[in-house]
């Protein structure tokens, strides 16, 4: 017998055992057992591994205190752990230094921070910002607020019918008026991964900085902000298997240094007097008030957890699920998948002819299958594809092929139910 080469395997059952919630059932009723949970809504928010839950509990039980403010023992312990989380985030993104990492409450807050601080300082009437049609509202509305304030223009790069970004259109939109590109790195609806490095290079040729919304991309692949040469890169902790209340803004230090504070308060000042207040250097400048200390530490542990499984192994596992589920779903008559870009992330948006996604969602839920239905905070994209809503199944490191099968079976049941 030939000697077998053993590849490092991704043991999904062991991974699942790390997520307490995955063993629960849903819809138990008197005398009737519940259905096993099939959680396919991680693109909205991911479940948390025991490692994260335990680390937060331990911190609260043993080390909790406010940070950056005390000479006492606990405050220093807590500060050390908080700052260690910043280093972990920097490593996760391959940032040059932890000084590049600003903690926010969410991706949404991170975009608003840039729009407010960078946008209000460096953009003026007639300047243009380029976004894509597949942005999450979090990367549209902050720019619209800036538009109302400053009279800037928002230009929109379209996608083709597969959901691939139209790079020619992007090229055409770049001009002397362009002052910022704010683009998703992975669409939360179509799964399309945009060519970040190329997008950045094209903008940089004109001296235009680029912000990437990595809320989805950072979950499903390895992100290297230096290789991409991103000027700003944004993530949100709760999709990275970490807690809510944590967001990340990576920024090139030269840019961060030029930017005025976003909010004022404690922790971000050097000295305060009524004659004039001076601000700390970034990142502290952008972290006014007591942050989500426990949660940020939890986020650090979540990133450790992903690293321990191997981010490439995670991506490979998710890609297998994406392909398998797409193939199985595509066999259902009348099912249409939106977003078929090559190299896309593990997100499948679909509609079933004759059945509204909202009804589909309610019915598959009765089978224990959790999917998101609606417009996914991306109305312009829904318009682009001429649909009012879609159903969306998204896959994470803890999902299995059996769960993809459960999805398919439940969709078939929907079809039978509606005679569609």
């Amino acid at each position, binding site marked *: 017998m030939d000697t077998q080469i053993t590849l490092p395997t991704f043991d999904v059952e062991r991974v699942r055992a790390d997520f307490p919630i995955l063993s629960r059932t849903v819809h138990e009723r008197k005398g009737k057992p519940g259905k096993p949970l099939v959680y396919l809504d991680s693109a909205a928010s991911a479940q948390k591994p025991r490692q994260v839950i335990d680390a937060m509990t331990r911190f609260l039980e043993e080390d909790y205190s406010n940070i950056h403010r005390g000479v006492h023992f606990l405050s220093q312990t807590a500060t050390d752990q908080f700052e260690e989380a910043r280093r972990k985030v920097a490593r996760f993104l391959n940032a040059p230094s932890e000084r590049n990492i600003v903690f926010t409450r969410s991706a949404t807050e991170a975009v608003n921070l840039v729009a407010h601080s960078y946008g209000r300082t460096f953009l003026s009437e007639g300047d243009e910002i380029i976004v894509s049609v597949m942005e999450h509202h979090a990367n549209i509305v902050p720019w619209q607020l800036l538009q109302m304030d400053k009279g800037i223009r928002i230009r929109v790069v379209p996608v083709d019918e597969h959901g691939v970004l139209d790079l020619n259109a992007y090229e055409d939109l770049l001009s002397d008026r362009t002052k910022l590109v704010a683009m998703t790195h992975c669409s939360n609806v179509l799964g399309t991964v945009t060519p970040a490095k190329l997008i950045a290079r094209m903008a940089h040729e004109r001296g235009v900085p680029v912000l990437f919304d990595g809320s989805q991309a950072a979950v499903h692949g390895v992100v290297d902000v230096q290789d991409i040469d991103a000027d700003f890169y944004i993530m949100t902790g709760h999709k990275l298997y970490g807690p809510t209340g944590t967001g990340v803004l990576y920024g090139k230090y030269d840019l961060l240094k030029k930017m005025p504070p976003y909010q004022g308060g404690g922790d971000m000042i050097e000295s305060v007097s009524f004659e004039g207040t001076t601000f700390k250097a970034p990142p502290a400048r952008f972290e006014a008030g007591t942050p989500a200390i426990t949660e940020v530490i939890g986020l650090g542990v979540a990133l450790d957890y992903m690293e321990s499984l191997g981010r490439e192994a995670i991506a490979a596992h998710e890609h297998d699920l994406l392909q398998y589920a797409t193939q199985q779903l595509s066999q259902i008559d009348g099912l249409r998948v939106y977003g078929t870009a090559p190299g896309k992330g593990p997100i499948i948006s679909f509609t079933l002819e004759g059945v509204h996604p909202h009804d589909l969602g309610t019915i598959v839920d009765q089978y224990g299958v959790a999917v998101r239905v609606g417009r996914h905070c991306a109305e312009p994209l829904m318009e682009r594809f001429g649909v009012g809503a879609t159903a969306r199944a998204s896959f994470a490191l803890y999902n299995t092929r059996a769960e993809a099968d459960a999805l398919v079976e439940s969709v078939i049941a929907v079809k039978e139910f*509606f005679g569609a």
Partner: protein
Amino acid sequence: MMDELRELYQEVILDHGKNPRNFRHPDDANREAKGENPMCGDRFMVYLKLKDGVVEDVAFQGRGCAISTASASMMTEVVKGKTEAEAKALFETFHDLCTKDDHDHGDHGPVDEDAMERLMVLSGVRQFPVRVKCATLAWHAMNAAIEGEDKASSE
């Protein structure tokens, strides 16, 4: 198929969902209001022809799920011919039907008991709280139209 689902998606609802009645834009409508559910993207226009305080015609257009479409469709059937006060009483009573246990239903003045009997099929949404908005979407728009507003205020 689970009982709860059968209860939510009764045959009548599936029928109205697929073949909505009064799905049109009447030329002589003198009131219209939009109802929108930002969560799922459902969007309806409800058109009324009001004359001397009576709903002479009522119709709707738009897109929505089976529940919201069926509810809109059935609404047009029961509201037609009612006075404004009767239509509003139906709205309030129907709203209670979708959201409250029987013994908590308020008194909204005299209502058409036959109509309420027919609308009972929609009471299944009570078991599905996130779907209540679907069942009441067009009704809110109808109520807004009677009050002379062009948009149902989102709750």
